[in-house]
């Protein structure tokens, strides 16, 4: 089996279309640019105030005033523009970002997402997570099928505090792609040799499966 993160990143890259405005969260989403075809140039928006994030800088090219929302040094495309944080989130909340790709702790069958807080742990950082899942036109969740303790992350109902209800459009794990159709996640595609039963075992509750996979 291929490295789960790469399987997910590669499949997520195929969801993006040339010219789209895309916001990438931390973790797996940051691997996506490496898997985009050369004819699929997208424009990366980072919520700290830039449209047109370029590749990571080589040594000596680092600009201390130029970072992404993960606080990593980046470069800027020739088309790049900068804006303040209110404007940046006005873009997000106003539906001007086509796609947000981000990780999650849990996604429910209804498309609810929990990705900012674990009960009983510190809930002191939310950042732009809530804005992105509410505001982006398409929300793609990239996550491994199981948590590090082996619990399914696609669940009948989220037990963790919600980031937003009915917000997720697509979920991509190393096993499968799920799409929200008529308000409910549907398994639509198997990845990397997984079977429907494999996916059933690693998701909580009764899962809807697209006809073509049965």
């Amino acid at each position, binding site marked *: 089996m291929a490295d789960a993160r790469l399987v997910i990143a590669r499949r997520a890259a195929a969801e993006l279309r040339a010219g789209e405005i895309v916001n990438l969260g931390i973790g797996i989403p940051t691997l996506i640019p490496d898997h985009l075809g050369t004819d699929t140039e997208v424009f990366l928006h980072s919520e700290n105030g830039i449209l047109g994030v370029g590749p990571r800088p080589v040594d000596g090219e680092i600009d201390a005033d130029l970072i992404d929302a993960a606080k990593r040094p980046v470069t800027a495309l*020739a*088309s790049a523009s*900068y804006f303040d944080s209110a404007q940046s989130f*006005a*873009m997000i*909340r*106003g539906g001007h970002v086509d796609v947000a790709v981000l990780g999650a702790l849990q996604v429910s069958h209804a498309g609810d997402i929990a990705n900012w807080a674990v009960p009983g742990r510190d809930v002191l950082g939310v950042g732009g997570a809530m804005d992105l899942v509410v*505001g982006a036109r398409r929300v793609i969740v990239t996550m491994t099928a199981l948590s590090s303790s082996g619990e399914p992350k696609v669940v009948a109902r989220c037990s963790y505090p919600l980031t937003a209800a009915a917000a997720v459009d697509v979920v991509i794990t190393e096993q499968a792609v799920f799409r929200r159709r008529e308000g409910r996640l549907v398994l639509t595609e198997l990845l990397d040799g997984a079977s429907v039963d494999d996916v059933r075992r690693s998701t909580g509750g009764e899962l809807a499966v697209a006809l073509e996979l049965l």
Partner: protein
Amino acid sequence: MPARVVSLDEALSHVHDGDTILCGGFGLVGAPMSLLDALAERSTARDLTVVSNNIGEPGRGLGALLRQGRIRHGISSYFTSNPEAVAAVNSGTITATLLPQGTFAEAIRAGGAGLGGFYTPVGAGTALAAGKEQRELDGRLQVLERPIRGDVALVYADRADELGNLSYRKTARNFNPLMATAATITIAEVGALVPVGSLDAEAIHTPHLYVDLIVVRDG
């Protein structure tokens, strides 16, 4: 998607009967005059709602559409700058929503920013708050104002790059950056089209994600 450079006719094909048109400009300064002239001369779209600080001047800008009877409703802070607009409201030819200028600007910003509304002390307790929710916040009476959005935004910018980044010039900026954020389709008339990378990144007032179509102003 990157903006596409199109002809006036193609741009106007996106304006349909019954649409709400957001239009930049303070009076005629910064107004997309080529788009407005073409809209009057070469489009038949009617029953329009126009959202603009003024309804043009008599026979000019939005005033030409008004004369043609193609405007159904106006949302504005100052109809008075076009006496024909005032006459049209008084005769019942068009209906009008009058907003304080700052509220008007803020409501369009809210429309583009995905907000559900905002409270402002401006207009509270006056005739312009009639029928609106008012409540005391921070010891001041405030009015709930709702976001404004449109189907098509028509804006004017001094320069655009080929992706649709826009830079405005001096007081021709006015309402244009706001209108550009708040419509389903944003059409920018520009004084000049320049290659990507030739605008100062710190002076791109409207990043390209807001712009769908570009029309280069005639001569």
